[in-house]
Each structure stands twice: as C-alpha cells, then as structure tokens.
C-alpha cells in the first residue's frame, strides 16, 4: 500500500483530532468530573493511535498509546482529574502537534518523547487513589464493556430504543432458571439482549436471587417488551426504563452518549467531501472567467441589440450569479477554524504571565472565505497576546483599583453588510495617548504638525513600524514588531484595522474583513486614457466638482465639502500619468481608517463586479495597487489600493 497518498488525510485528520483534544482538555480542566469529555478525549486519542500506527508514525502511536493508558485511569475512576495530569496531557498534545507537523513535511528536529512517555507511564502506574471509587461507566445501573457501549450507540443511531428491564420473580417461584430463560427467550423475539445480569451461565447454575436485569435493544416499543416479560408466569415485578439518546452524560447513562457520539460523527462525515483548496481556487477562477465573459457578451449586445440574445444573456446572468454564490459559499469556512486554538493559547499565556484571564469567544460560527481565514490567524494571535500581556493588569493590580481579579478578553466575530468584523477587546489598563505621543515624538514621527494630531489619531501610531511602548520586553510581546505587521497582513487581504482605547478601561481592536477576496464590487474610473478600479469598500461618496471649487491650503489642494476641508489627491500625478487636470473632474471620496481623502479622476465609468487577479511576485508589492482585473472588453485594469495612495 502506498501510504504517501493517505498522508494528507492523516495529517488533516490528526490536526482535527488534536484540536478536539485541546478543546476537550480545556473543558475537562473546568469540569474535572465530566465523563462525556473524558470519553471524547479517549476516543480521539485512540483514533489517532490507530491511524498513526497504520501510517507507521511510531512516536505518535507510542505517545497516544500512553495518553490512552493515562486517560483510562481517569475514565475508570481509578484516578481523578487534577492539574498535574492535565498539564501532562497538554504537554503530550504539544509534542503530538510537533510530530504531526513533521509528518506533514515540516522542518525541524523530532522531539524526544521518551521522558514524556515515561512520566505518563509513571503516572498511570501509580496506585489508584481509591479503589473503592464506584465505577461510573454504567448504563441504568449496568456496567458495560466498550463493545457493548458501541452496540447500544449504534442501535440508537439507527433509530432503535434501548431499555433496561428490572424483572423480579415471585418469591414462590420454584423453577427460577426456567422462568429466567423464558423471559430471556421472549425478549429475544422482540429485540436484542445486549447485557443480562445474571448472564446465561449464572442463570443455568441458578446462581442468582430473584432479580434479573437486562439491557434490551428493540425497534418495538416498551409495551412489546412488557408483554414479552409478563407472558411468563410467576413474575412479581417489572420495571422498564428507557435509555434516551440525548441523555446527558451524567450518572447512569454515560455509555449511551459514548456510542451515539461516535456514530453521530460518522454519519455526519458521510455527508461531506474533503476538497483540496487549490481545486476550489481553480473553480473560483473559472467562475471568474465566466463572469468576465458574461459582462463581455452583455457589452457586445449593447451595440448589436439582439432581442433574443438579451433574454439568453439575462438567463446566463442569473445562472452565473447563482454559480458564483455557491462557489463562494463552498469556500466559506466558519471562523471557528482559527478561533478554536485561542482558548488553549490564552490559558498557557495567563499561566506564564501569572495573570487571570477569562476568554470569551463570540460568533465563532461566522463564516468567511477560506483564504481570509488563513491570513488572519497570526494577526489575531498577536492581538490576543498583546491584550493579555500589555492590556490586562496583574490580579493584584486589578484588585487594588477595584476591578475583578480576572481580566476579560473578548474575541468576537460578526457579519456586517459585506464585511466580517472581528473584535479583540480587553478590560485592562488601556493605552495612554500621552505615552504614544511622547514615543512618537521621540521617534521623530510627529514633526511640526504635532498639534494637529488629536488623541484618537495618535493611537493609530501604534501601527507604525518599530513602534512599541512596552516598558519591558517580555517573552510574549513588546519587541516593537507586531502591530505594523498586523496592520499590513490585514490590509493585504483587503481588510482594515482600527484601535480604540480608554486609559484604565481597556482597549478594542476592530478588524474589518471582506467576506471574500476573489470577486468584489468596484467603481471603474478613467484617468487620462487609463481605466482603474476602486473597490467600493473604500468609497464614501462621489462629488462632481468644477475646478473653481478647488482651493489651496498650505500647499495642498483641498475642496470644502459640507463645511469640512477635504484634501485632494491628483490620481494622474500619483499614477505617473501626464499631470494637469482636465476640464471636467470628479472627486471620489475614499475613507481609510478615519481619514477621508478625495481622489481626483477624469471620468466615472460605472460600478461593476470585478474578479481580482493578483499581480504575481514579479510585480507584486507596488504601493497603491492591490491587483488587476480583466474588463468586459478583455483589457486589463489595475485595482487601486486607497491606503497606498494617500
């Protein structure tokens, strides 16, 4: 068997299992007694072990095997969950992560897992804390083996019901074995007996009192079972209790949730297909071509004016828009894919920094384009680290100023129009504008116009390269790199980032992201003989101005628009075209952050859906340009990037 071809699947599934292990461990840390979580962890570790062994990744298999052993101690109730074992398991996860990355072809040295394995073994081998601890892996008072649990789960998944029957034979009963056998046989006719106490052997030996306890799976109802049992003579009592599928993983019904959880996962998986993201990119490209050609056809027909073609074009238009929206939806993934790793990160961070942090995650089901999701992970890591490290005070400091000991960091995502808004909010010490101002002055960023920059604007200076006001360089953040990287990463996917802060109350960083990168609405404008596209996202309004309205203030051209002064940028000059302004000019007012600037253009061509094409490595990175697009007439137009122009 060529394992290479399964490697991708293995890596991807392993990562999913690791993520779920991480999540579960965090939850377990909060709810140490929760059997459901323990079982989930056990299962994920078990699956990983199996996959790794098949693929020949011995280290992963060894490590997961030892985790399993340790987990079994917890699950069986022989040991209880404590901080030591959680830490040990987290450590194991970190090593697994590295091993999986290596398996995926990552660079680096294979970590030595022997000490970790040894510690896990030692922990698992230690004497159980209390042998008398009752076994909790029971269903309706029945202890079940793994296999039996799985059987029950599977049956429930297939719509059968599970019942626990407590049958009491009459005291006067002489032929106890015979009666028990009859009960057994009758029940077999209406369902499957998964477990019986006494079991068949004990029954034969008459090695029981008057009570029978049976776990039966059936697709008939409770009444059928009752009838089956009561048709036997000398039955004194019968109690039937159903095991519900949805039952909480508490007390007696753990086994059931185990089974269904597993089966549920399988059933869902069969509904989905894993697709390589590159194929989706290709698909998106092709749909893009289709959109371009549709526009082209429509343009031809504005000249030719063929009635029949018009109808067909309208239909084609509807089909392409549907196709486009489906392809876009296919590419959408919940932001959870990124958010899910943060709880663990914050936990570790809080521990390293001796801080107490409540992380609140909201809107993780918010969907956006896969490419955008891939890009925002690192910036968010940085912002969250900043929030915990610089934003939040130490518990002692917080208490002293009357705040709760634990700081709150909120990470939220939501849709707003065609955008996704992500917020990182903390209730820490906030940013003091005076300190930023002092730092900016020190770095010589302010110049003579210092007094023109108000406190709100001064906060934006933290996004400048090399800007850091952290007094101490911790291992976490404050090296003076970061916020500028955050900003450029987010802008590279067509987003923007803003920061608001109140000293003593906290900081909010807001990220606006486009839903998708591939197709956007844009305004086409003409400057001299060239056509350019400006993404609608930047545009506030369009003003028709005569040259006489243009004034010069401090050597800068401005217009007065509803009593505010709007600085102008001559696009022809910025784009290296022949200078000078034509007779007629329009001003496209763009907004970048909280700055508004008017771009002077010659003509307005119209609003259109455009497909963004990247300029490639050779030409990429030119400031003021974010890509190119192909117009309906087959010509290429550049897409202007407003932040780079002003």
């Amino acid at each position, binding site marked *: 068997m060529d394992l290479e071809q399964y490697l991708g699947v293995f890596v991807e599934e392993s990562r999913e299992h690791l993520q779920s292990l991480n999540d579960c461990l965090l939850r377990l840390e909060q709810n140490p007694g929760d059997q459901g979580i323990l079982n989930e962890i056990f299962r994920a570790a078990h699956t990983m072990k199996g996959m790794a062994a098949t693929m020949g990744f011995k280290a992963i298999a060894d490590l997961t095997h030892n985790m399993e052993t340790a987990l079994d101690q917890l699950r069986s109730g022989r040991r209880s969950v404590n901080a030591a074992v959680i830490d040990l398991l987290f450590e194991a996860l970190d090593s697994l992560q590295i091993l999986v990355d290596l398996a995926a072809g990552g660079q680096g040295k294979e970590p030595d897992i022997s000490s970790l394995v040894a510690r896990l073994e030692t922990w698992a081998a230690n004497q159980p804390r209390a042998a008398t601890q009752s076994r909790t892996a029971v269903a309706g008072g029945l202890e079940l083996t793994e296999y039996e649990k799985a059987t029950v789960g599977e049956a429930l998944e297939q719509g059968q019901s599970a019942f626990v029957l407590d049958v009491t034979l009459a005291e006067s009963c002489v032929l106890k074995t015979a009666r028990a056998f009859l009960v057994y046989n009758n029940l077999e006719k209406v369902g499957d007996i998964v477990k019986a106490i006494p079991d068949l052997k004990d029954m034969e030996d008459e090695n029981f009192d008057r009570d029978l306890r049976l776990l039966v799976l059936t697709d008939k109802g409770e009444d059928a079972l009752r009838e089956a049992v009561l048709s036997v003579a000398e039955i004194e009592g019968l109690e039937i209790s159903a095991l519900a599928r949805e039952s909480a993983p508490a007390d007696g019904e753990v086994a059931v949730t185990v089974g269904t959880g597993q089966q549920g996962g399988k059933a869902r998986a069969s509904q989905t297909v894993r697709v390589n993201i590159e194929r989706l990119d290709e698909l998106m490209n092709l749909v893009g071509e289709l959109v371009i050609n549709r526009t082209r056809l429509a343009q031809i027909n504005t000249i030719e004016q063929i009635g029949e073609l018009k109808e067909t074009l309208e239909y084609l238009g509807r089909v392409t828009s549907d196709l486009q929206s489906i392809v876009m939806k296919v590419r959408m993934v919940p932001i959870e894919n990124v958010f899910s790793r943060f709880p663990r990160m914050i936990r570790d961070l809080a521990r390293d920094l001796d801080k107490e942090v409540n992380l609140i995650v909201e809107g993780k089901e918010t969907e956006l384009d896969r490419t955008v999701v891939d890009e925002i992970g690192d910036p968010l890591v940085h912002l969250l680290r900043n929030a915990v490290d610089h934003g939040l005070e130490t518990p002692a400091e917080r208490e002293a100023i009357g705040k709760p000991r634990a700081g709150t960091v909120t990470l939220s995502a939501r849709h707003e129009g065609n955008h996704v808004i992500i917020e990182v909010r903390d209730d820490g010490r906030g940013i003091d504008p005076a300190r930023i101002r002092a730092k900016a002055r020190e770095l010589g960023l302010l110049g003579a116009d210092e007094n023109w920059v108000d406190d709100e604007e001064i906060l934006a200076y933290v996004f400048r390269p090399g800007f850091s006001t952290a007094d101490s360089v911790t291992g976490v953040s404050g090296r003076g790199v970061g916020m500028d990287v955050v900003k450029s990463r987010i802008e590279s996917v067509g987003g923007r980032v803003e920061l608001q802060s109140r000293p003593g109350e906290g900081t909010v960083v807001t990220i606006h992201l486009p839903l998708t990168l591939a197709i956007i609405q844009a305004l086409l404008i003409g400057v001299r003989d060239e056509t350019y596209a400006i993404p609608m996202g930047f545009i506030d309004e369009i003003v028709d101005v005569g040259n006489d309205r243009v004034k010069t203030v401090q050597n800068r051209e401005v217009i007065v628009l509803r009593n505010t002064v709007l600085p102008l940028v001559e696009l022809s000059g910025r784009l290296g075209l022949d200078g000078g302004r034509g007779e007629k000019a329009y001003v496209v007012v763009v907004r970048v952050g909280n700055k508004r600037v008017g771009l002077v253009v010659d003509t307005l061509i119209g609003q259109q859906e455009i497909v963004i094409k990247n300029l*490639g490595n050779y030409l990429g990175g030119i400031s003021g340009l974010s890509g190119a697009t192909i117009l309906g007439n087959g010509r290429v137009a550049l897409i202007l990037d407003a932040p780079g122009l002003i």
Partner: protein
Amino acid sequence: MAQVAAFNGEVQMVVFRLADEEYAVPITQVQEINRMTEVTRVPRTPEYVEGIINLRGRVIPVIDLKKRFGLASRERGAETRIVVVEVRGETVGMVVDAVTEVLHLDGSDIEPPPPAATSVDAAYIQGVGKVEDRLLILLDLDEVFVRKEMAS
C-alpha cells in the same frame, strides 16, 4: 573549449531577435508566442516593465527585453512578438523584435559567455551557441527576471 554544464546533449531552443542580434532560450521554458497586444501600464515600475496583459483570463507582466538590456529601442512592427515564458514558477512575457526559428543545438556547440563580446551584460548570459556562422546568445531568464531590480 569548455562546455556549459547546464546544456548536456541536445537542446531545443527558441531563437528570437533583438535589434541585430540573435538570442535563444530553451523551448522548455517557453509557453507560447503571441502577437503584440494591448498592454496596461503599471505605475511605479521601472521603464522596461511594459505593463500587464490578459493572457486568456490570466494577468501576466510583460517586459520590454530591449529596454531591459539597455538596447536602442526600435519601432514595433508586424514581427514584434510577446514570448511567454515560465521563470521561477511565474508566467511572464517579454517583448522581442521577432521570433525567427526553433532549432536543435548540441551541448558541445555551446560555450561559456565570452567577456565583453556582446551588448548584453554577461550576468544575463548562460552561454553562446554556435550554429554555422551564427552566434546565438543564450539568456539566463532567472537572472533577467530578478526581482531586486524592481525595487528601485
């Protein structure tokens, strides 16, 4: 004379003309050859960057090879072509005066670049191919399309 290591055995080359000299690139690097088409200028790029074109739905950069090498530019005519090549995994186009032929060249006919014998900087030349009395300048496209020159 020493052979050029990069060329072993027989190689197939696309030969094109810039001003009065003949140049060649391995056919394996050439994707297609197109007539001159409408090029969109890209601001803030060096002069030799002609702009970008629509290659069947893809946007690719095009450079003027003569300007790139600092050769005197000449009117574009019916023979002007865009040679689309694959360099460092990227598709790029180069404007040449004419594409003349595709020929086989034996590795033994290729020699290292003679110092200062051509009008093009030796850094861009992989070797010189001799075909009868003709001299073909074999270009090193990886060098021609070096990104760092763009930074200016």
